[in-house]
């Protein structure tokens, strides 16, 4: 399937998109491997297969714009510019992690770059980021806020409450639904009254856009239009990105994955990274040496992150009582 036409982005920006998507892919592969090796604890949810959504949307944002994520949050962190070292150290449960070892995979945040956190409760982040959208409107500096959430969250109350408020108050918001067709193990087909989450936007009088979530240029173009609309004061947009996760809901061993193997394989044929790579080659903006260079940079950064994580000290037991309250 051909990709959308290349947006008006310079080639180096397009190669940067590829680098970020590859960074997410390799980070998740390593997180999965280290989880199964016992170096990462609890639970890990991998973003593999959905990289075009986070990178396509975040490329349309400025550094001062704010986003919020889900339990499957590593990709959004990386796309917003989070530090791989502190991310990996957090997964490793170290003092040097983003949350000093208090959060782990499901709770990485970096408020300094406008990443208001991964969130372990489905739909839990939507109202928080809508408050950041209200803050951006009150600041009056043209900032926007982006809620990333899944198809599962679109059936929860806060989604509807917040779309209504954002539409009524014309908040500078993007609601980006990553419809990967499954809420944990339950298919959207079983739980959604309508096929398209985006159709719900009509109920709130805002644009609802469906895009191919594996086509990073399509995602980027939809996000760019929505950002422009938000910054102009015209209000929020709901963007539904149809995509797919390659791995099971979590990395836990023995977890049921009821999805048809043929379905998974068919989606792997629509790999968003391979699509962009082919597009860049077709445009004459990427060759073998160029790709090797990007891969090399990504792997070097990842190895450095793992080394940083392993070198970091574990928290001290007495630090369990730190930061319950702020001063």
């Amino acid at each position, binding site marked *: 399937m051909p990709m959308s036409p290349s947006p008006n982005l310079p080639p180096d920006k397009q190669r940067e998109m590829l680098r970020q998507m590859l960074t997410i892919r390799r980070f998740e592969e390593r997180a999965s491997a280290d989880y199964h090796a016992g170096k990462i604890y609890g639970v890990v949810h991998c973003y593999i297969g959905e990289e075009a959504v986070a990178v396509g949307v975040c490329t349309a944002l400025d550094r001062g714009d704010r986003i919020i994520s889900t339990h499957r949050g590593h990709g959004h962190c990386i796309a917003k510019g989070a530090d791989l070292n502190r991310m990996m150290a957090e997964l490793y449960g170290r003092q040097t992690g983003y949350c000093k*070892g208090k959060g782990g995979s499901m709770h990485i945040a970096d*408020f300094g770059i406008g990443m208001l956190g991964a969130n*372990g*409760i489905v739909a839990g982040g*939507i*109202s928080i980021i809508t408050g950041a959208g209200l803050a951006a409107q009150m600041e009056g500096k043209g900032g926007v806020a982006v809620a990333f959430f899944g198809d599962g969250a679109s059936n929860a109350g806060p989604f509807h409450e*917040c779309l*209504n408020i954002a539409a*009524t108050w014309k908040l500078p918001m993007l609601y980006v639904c990553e419809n990967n067709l499954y809420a944990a193990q339950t298919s959207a087909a079983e739980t959604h009254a309508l096929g398209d989450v985006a159709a719900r936007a009509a109920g709130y009088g805002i644009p609802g856009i469906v895009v191919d979530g594996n086509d990073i240029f399509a995602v980027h173009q939809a996000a760019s239009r929505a950002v422009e609309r938000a910054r102009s004061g015209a209000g929020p947009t709901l963007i539904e990105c149809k995509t797919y996760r390659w791995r099971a809901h979590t990395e836990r061993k023995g977890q049921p994955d009821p999805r048809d193997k043929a379905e998974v394989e068919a989606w792997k044929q629509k790999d968003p990274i391979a699509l962009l790579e082919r597009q860049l080659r077709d445009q004459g903006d990427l060759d073998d040496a160029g790709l090797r260079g990007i891969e090399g940079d990504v792997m070097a950064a990842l190895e450095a992150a793992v080394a940083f994580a392993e070198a970091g000290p574990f928290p001290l037991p007495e630090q369990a009582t730190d930061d319950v309250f702020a001063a």
Partner: protein
Amino acid sequence: MRELTYNEAAVEAVAEEMRRDPKIFYMSTDAIPSLLQEFGEQRIRATPIAEAALTGMAIGAAGSGFRPIVDWRQVTFCFVAMDQIVNQAAKIHYMFGGQVTFPILYRAAVGGGGLVAAQHSQSPYSMFMNVAGLKMFLPSTPYDIKGLLKTAIRDNNPVISFESSRLMGRKGPVPEGDYTIPFGVADVKRSGDDVTVVALAWLVHESLAAAEELAKEGISVEIVDPRTLVPLDTATIRESVRKTGRLVIADEAGPTCGFSAEVAAVVTEDAATFARLKAPVKRVCALQVPIPYSPVLENAVFPDRGRIIAGIREVLQGTRSAAAA
């Protein structure tokens, strides 16, 4: 000194703080008219009836540099926002390693006496005391609510202001000008020697009436009003009980895992205080039932000065050896 009602003192606290700090804004499902008139629709926001959204939006706005106030009005309306309160607001500072602060004030009226039945007569503060990461208070006087609200608005954490429905129209002295009351500092509302009554909100006033009555018999009652629930001033409670040797706890909520149970534990788990106890601790609480509508039933459920007096007499007659005897 001038007198204000409890409600007037609360609104005055909010207005003074909003004049002082432009980052404060207010969201509630109906706007308070005097605040709306002074501060306008941008800062005094009348919202949809969507407490889950409002409660969470406050977190995002706070994390973006604002100091939001969300008025749930009655505590019962916040139960649809429990995810935002318990999973998000309470944990977000800690879970993210203390990166940024979340200065949020949530306001909620609690308690009975309005003959509005089970859903609108609740006192569920101990449910929230059980959640790490939230500060909260429940004042008994106009003076206290003003000073505590101002402290709450200046605090860099999520704070819940529980406010007694029964006391909204009650007047009391409130000085002109700025003052704050620190969290975690109880107020001894009456000094005495024979028995300590730890009471909250409306029951502080019922305890004062009970103490007046018993003073005629020569019984000297000390009344401790913790004011703040989290952090709780355990030192003042223990000090009072070490002096009197007897403790009654009066609470408009039910007893099970309640504020009253916490105070009983605070007193009995401290060896020095336990050693001075002359009698078993007595809790005077609401019955552990949903609050009923009919006046006869509502009165039967809630404690009042009569039940506090009976409780005091019981602990005055009690001894440490009664159980063994």
